[in-house]
């Protein structure tokens, strides 16, 4: 896959409303910027993430990630562990159908980590940009 210098990937981020979503709000308060083509979807807990959501997101975007609470610090005890399992499950499915499994990721952060949020998003964005466009996108 040729890496186009002008390629701007689109990312869908699922955010737990107890950590990732609040971290994004914190980032907004601090006016920290991150790439425009990052869209967020709010979930009540990272454990609500579903393989189906990831797959649907990858029909539209080049990469997708879930933001969960710090390990051992989930408001619902095991939500982030469940999310991690969902991510690895999605990775396996992606590998089977010939898409890079790095296109799906999980990141842990706390509600007051606005800086970490932008760092994570920027890092994931750069990684996906190196990978190039997602071959599995459904273009109607």
């Amino acid at each position, binding site marked *: 896959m040729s890496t186009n210098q002008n390629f701007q990937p689109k990312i869908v981020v699922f955010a737990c409303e107890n950590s990732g979503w609040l971290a994004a709000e914190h980032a907004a308060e601090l006016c920290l910027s991150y790439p*425009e083509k990052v*869209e967020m979807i709010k979930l*009540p*807990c990272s454990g609500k993430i579903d393989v189906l959501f990831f797959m649907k997101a990858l029909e539209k975007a080049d990469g997708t990630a879930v933001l969960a609470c710090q390990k051992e610090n989930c408001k619902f*005890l095991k939500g982030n562990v469940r999310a991690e399992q969902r991510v690895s499950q999605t990775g396996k499915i992606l590998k089977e159908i010939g898409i890079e499994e790095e296109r799906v990721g999980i990141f842990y952060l706390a509600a007051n980590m606005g800086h970490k949020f932008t760092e994570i998003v920027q890092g994931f964005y750069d990684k996906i940009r190196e990978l190039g466009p997602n071959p599995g996108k459904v273009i109607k």
Partner: protein
Amino acid sequence: MENNTRIGVFFCNCNGKITEKVDYEEITSEIKKLPQVEYVRDSQNLCAHLEGELICKEISKNQLNRIVVIGCAGSREEGFFREVLVKAGLNPHLLSMVNLLGECCAVHEKNPQVKVKSIELARMGVARAALLEEVKHGDVPVNRTVLVIGGGLAGMETALENAARGFKVILAEKEDKLGGRLARVNSIIGVDRKPAELLDEKVKAVTSNPAIEVRTNTRLGDLDGNIGGFTAWLVKDGTETPVEVGAIVVATGVQTIFCPVKYGLSIADNVIGQMKLERLLADGKDFNRKNISMIIGKGTEAFNLPFVIAVKNALLLRQKFNATVNLFYTNIKVGGDNWEKMYTDARAAGVNFFKFEDNIEIAANNGEIIINYEDPFLGNKVPGTYKITSDYIVLPEELVPSEGTEELAGVLRLELGPASFLSIDNAHILPEMTSRDGIYLAGSCQMPGFVNEIEISAKAVAEEIFRKLYDEKVSVEMTQPYVDATKCVVCLTCYRCCPHGAITIEHGEQYENLYKSAAVMNPLACRKCGICAAECPGKAIQLPDYTDSQILAQLEAMEVQP
């Protein structure tokens, strides 16, 4: 309702903060093209109070039944708009909020991509709004009986506090009489009374209270159900009797294990533990002008209790018997009400404090204790070991959860926390709460605690139970996940993965599947995390406000770029 969805879109300028970066006209022209969107308007500041009334009017005038707010999506604003919806006669859950300020305007510079993103966000919000569902309130009948496990001071205090709030209480004690471990103690820190006196008073109050039923020699065998409707099987002499209760308070406390081997000693008359010392003091043993050494350290530093007890007893021996007290410590933790003062009092009264690090050797020789130790501070100036002889050595005991805590945690479906004590849900919100609503902790079963904290803890538990079970029927918002019984195959995945034990399997003819049963989420115990909905292999579970179709519709509304 589906055929008659009328979406109203309200756009907020946020006093120009939003229109500075994105163009209102462009967004509205896009939104107006969407089906079901009946009404679009903008405002300078949508969360002002007069605007609320205006939104109400517009909702009834245009017969809108789904509202999209494009602006910000903070929890404060969300609460405000939900109130507005209720005032307009709509269900408060028919609201979709788009965080244009936070996701677009505050973080990006003005450029063509921001325009694209803002339109996409608005479309996602509208797509979600079209699929929103109403959430109703329901009345849940609850049982107003409280089961208290453990008849120690914490258990009795909790029983009394609950009885005072109009609950019926069953107090289950595994021993044959009430009292617990406090009966073995000589004096209490921070409480100016004899423990025996205090216990007598509480036992009398409990036994004379008609609302409290005391069951001795009883333990909890099994548990079923959820808050407001537990069925607890109480085991007495090998026979199980079920009782219906609404809430459960665990007050099983702590036990001490005397382990002199850790210090290289064996059990002898002059090698005693702090609990034994308390017992001897209560029995009136004479320590007049004796030489007593105490040790704190070697793995007992996890809790405050051993430090405070040692300092308390050292001060008491010094003042009452004029004994020579040597206190060997690696660290002193006296963080609490008046404890620092107790420590300085002990120093002023002439208790000798010796710090050691690792190098301490204790030997018992013909009724005499010889302690050799190295002082880390003096060691630089006067090297070598110091030798101290004394008549008694008092060692700290290991503090472990009381016998059977692990089995109890299994029955209650709770997790064990640090040092195998029962784990609390969140130390900052309410330290008495567990991961399951309706099961609370009081006293030392969560961490070795102090008598003066028990009253506060018991009151907090009773208030929390009263807040939840305030009447025979409680009204709750049915935001718990709902199950499509035709898809449920009773695989128990949700039952096992629910972190709050809120799911039960119900049987009945109304469940239209092969098994005539389905998983049911308890609205009182559920905390709306949606883990069950995600785990369900049959996609039979949907969480209101976050249904699969709503989230997929949001994704569907995104544009694909090659």
